[in-house]
């Protein structure tokens, strides 16, 4: 498993939890003990699922991963060469070399060891350097966004690079139309020449507004026909994946059984900068995507930071095909992210009383900085007298404050306790019968504590025999540091979008409408300590090893 996703919440965990009844804590709460138990299994299951899907793709030529390693270079160190070692009486542990540099076109580049010297990091990790490829074209879509009514006057441009095309349909009202008693789907028929220069026709169906990739690779399009598409709808055809606004989950988890959810990603802007949003839909069948009506409604939104920890203003997002990362550009950098929520430190959960009578109800478990959430109390067993409660929160910076009934913060001290006179504020349905609204002003883990003093009888004697309970909930104000923030070549200028072609090659389009093909480079090495061998992904003319 890649190091960067070892501490990420697996999407499958919630799916496993959904097998439990709707009222159970394991289904409702990501931080429930049950889900914490499922999480490691879910993570491994997701890994197995991803690789099964990846290998299935490679089994077919058309869906092969074209970014597989195509050649390595290696250096055999002389027999006299010795690594640095930790020496114990009974074992030897090799230490990573002090420095390894590679010479490329006369300049020396410092090479990093693949994280944890792992083969997977070496093969499927993130790049360390971006360079321009030779290909660059003025970017013209095959068909720029055109009203279907005006399609006959639309100008078709041959794709600068032949390949599969992306067709984007928007504003088409209902996804399916009724025709003579049956439901029919909207479709677009392309006629032209395929990549082998043969005349070809392809019909593409749309179950919903969105972007669909063609099955054939095209070198020229002669004509477009539409059927069951409103004349007020718009159509656009691209040879790069730039027409999309939302991207379907590329982890291969989108193929799901009835009423399971699948997810889309998109880039959103907030007052702090950019965020990565995850929309979750429930599928009634695999052809019709509708907004979820399942019990649990989950939307993650992650604040995006660069690798140094500053907010970014992203302009374009693209998932990296057949890899586990999402790439966001802010105009001059490419930032690489893992699109799954991090697992927060759950240690404080152990401070909760088992079966606390007064429990915290948080509206959500994942929020973003600036969000306001509702906090409510949940009385699990009625007919107990609540004598005092104290709601407090430990913020990501470590400070702890009390929260009053109107959501404002006061210093954490004994003054934070709220006395509940019999029948005054605390009712069976909850605290004041509505929630306390609290605004999240920082990123990181918020730990909410609800301390309560209750009495287990209704007599006044109970004053002398109070019971002390604490409930703890963790709220994650999601944020994500980029795994790498790589500077784009200066000659490109400020870019507007990052996209991939159908050969899984990255492209950027700058403000002048010029598309540049990028090359990802990996200045990494893998050390085979036993055999005194170094393996590289790039072909350097010289390597300097300093043990």
């Amino acid at each position, binding site marked *: 498993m890649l190091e960067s996703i070892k501490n990420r919440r697996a999407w499958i965990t919630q799916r496993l939890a959904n097998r439990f009844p709707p009222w159970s804590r394991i289904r409702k709460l990501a931080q429930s003990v049950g889900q914490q138990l499922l999480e490691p299994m879910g993570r491994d299951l997701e890994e197995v699922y991803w690789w099964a899907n990846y290998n299935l793709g*490679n*089994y077919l*030529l*058309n869906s*092969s*991963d*074209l*970014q*597989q*390693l*195509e*050649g*390595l*270079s*290696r*250096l*055999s*160190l*002389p027999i*006299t*060469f*010795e*690594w*640095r*070692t*930790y*020496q*114990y*009486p009974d074992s030897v542990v090799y*230490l990573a070399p002090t420095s390894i540099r590679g010479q490329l076109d006369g300049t020396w580049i410092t090479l990093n060891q693949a994280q944890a010297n792992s083969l997977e990091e070496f093969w499927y990790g993130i790049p360390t350097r971006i360079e321009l490829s030779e290909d660059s074209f003025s970017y013209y879509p095959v068909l720029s966004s055109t009203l279907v009514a005006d399609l006959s006057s639309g100008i078709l441009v*041959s794709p600068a690079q032949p390949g599969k095309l992306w067709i984007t349909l928007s504003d088409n009202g209902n996804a399916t139309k009724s025709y003579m008693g049956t439901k029919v789907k909207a479709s677009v028929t392309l006629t032209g*020449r*395929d*990549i*082998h*220069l*043969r005349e070809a026709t392809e019909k593409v169906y749309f179950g919903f507004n969105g972007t669909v990739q063609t099955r054939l*690779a095209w*070198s*020229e399009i002669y004509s477009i026909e539409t059927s069951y598409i409103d004349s007020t709808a718009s159509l656009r055809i691209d040879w790069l994946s730039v027409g999309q606004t939302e991207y379907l989950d590329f982890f291969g988890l989108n193929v799901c059984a009835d009423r399971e959810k699948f997810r889309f990603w998109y880039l959103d802007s907030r007052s702090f900068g950019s965020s990565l949003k995850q929309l979750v839909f429930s599928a009634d069948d695999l052809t019709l995507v509708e907004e979820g009506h399942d019990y649990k409604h989950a939307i993650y939104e992650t604040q995006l930071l660069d690798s140094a920890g500053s907010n970014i203003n992203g302009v374009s997002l693209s998932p990296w095909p057949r890899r586990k990362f999402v790439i966001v550009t802010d105009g001059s950098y490419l930032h690489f992210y893992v699109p799954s929520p991090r697992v927060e430190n759950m240690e404080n959960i152990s401070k909760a009383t088992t079966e606390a009578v007064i429990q915290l109800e948080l509206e959500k478990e994942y929020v973003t900085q600036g969000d306001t959430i509702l906090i409510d109390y949940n009385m699990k067993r009625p007919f107990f007298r609540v004598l005092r409660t104290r709601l407090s929160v430990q913020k990501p910076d470590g400070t702890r404050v009390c929260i009053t009934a109107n959501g404002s913060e006061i210093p954490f001290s004994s003054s934070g306790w709220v006395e509940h006179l019999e029948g005054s504020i605390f009712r069976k349905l909850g605290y004041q019968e509505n929630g306390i609204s609290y605004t999240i002003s920082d990123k990181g883990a918020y730990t909410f504590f609800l301390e309560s003093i209750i009495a287990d009888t209704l007599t006044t004697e109970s004053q002398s025999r109070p019971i002390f309970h604490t409930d703890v909930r963790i709220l994650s104000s999601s944020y994500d540091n980029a795994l790498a923030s790589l500077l784009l070549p200066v000659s490109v200028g400020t870019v507007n979008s990052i996209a991939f072609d159908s*050969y899984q*090659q990255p492209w950027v389009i700058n403000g002048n409408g010029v598309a540049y093909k990028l090359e990802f480079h990996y200045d990494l090495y893998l050390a085979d300590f036993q055999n005194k061998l*170094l*393996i*590289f992904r790039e*072909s*350097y*003319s*010289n*390597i*300097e*090893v*300093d*043990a």
Partner: protein
Amino acid sequence: MATNTFSLYWVIENAGKYTASPTAYPTKNDLDAHGTFLDLKRLPAEKNILYYKRLQSVLPLRGGSNHNGLVHALTRELGLQEFIGLKISPVPSNGGWRAPAPFVRITSTNIILYSNYIDDDHYEIDKTIDFFSHGSGYLLEDVIAEIGTSSYFIAELGNGLTGQEKANGLFPGTSSQIIYKEWVPANTFFALEHTDLIPGTLYFSEISVFSKELSPEVATKNENGFTFCWGISTPVTQDGDYFVNYKRGIVTSKKSSSGAGTCRYLYRIFPWHVRWSPIAVYSLRDTNYQSKVFETEVMLDNSVQHGLVSIEGSEIYSQIFDRSPCLWGE
């Protein structure tokens, strides 16, 4: 070397610096496995994308022993690429073409432009462009310029080419295609799969349904001389009457076909996209080619007799003998 292996604490050894050149270490990936299945090896240091494109072309552009098969296979094996070399179309005029019956034939050595082509015995040639050359090239842009001097045809260069490519890589072929068998739908008004049918080449298997073809003069005018609007009113009145709009490939008949009948026809494909490859393959049995590499002599009975190898031919053969130790004849 280890100096103090008995210490309870660790020891750092310093073995100093080492500089050397790494060696290439080819690896195989899943594409090479597909290459094994499709019998196409990766070229030395070939990138995934190019190899993938070559692998993808194995099934659509099959290799074989005929001209096209050889060119497809050789082009692919050498890591080259095929293009559309020329787009040839007749000069338009009055909604039709200036040429009465335009036809283009590309042979291994020349392009023949016919302004009026009925069949192999009845035709008018507009222009013949001889592009065969072994040494200095006859380029695609030269061919385009030559075609441009014709008053009946125009040509343009295909996508991705510069015009500096040698013209002898054009695939031989004709601008008309034969459809041997097409199912006729059970209808009295239908469109065939292609347009621009060549008059006189359309034959139906159900003779009773399609027995008398009405001429355009009869079919498009009623007894008062008014022109019919196709699809709304039809002039076919007798069983067996039918009319063909050859330009649009639309057939109107009095009787409906049974749905099991077929038809055959020739149709024109304009603009004609002519495939081009950097590889040119010639057959020694090709008479056009023979006339270029042998001295030819026309005998009294008009038959052509080949004599000695011409200067151009001897150059080619000496180059072949240089490379492969095969012998000519017995």
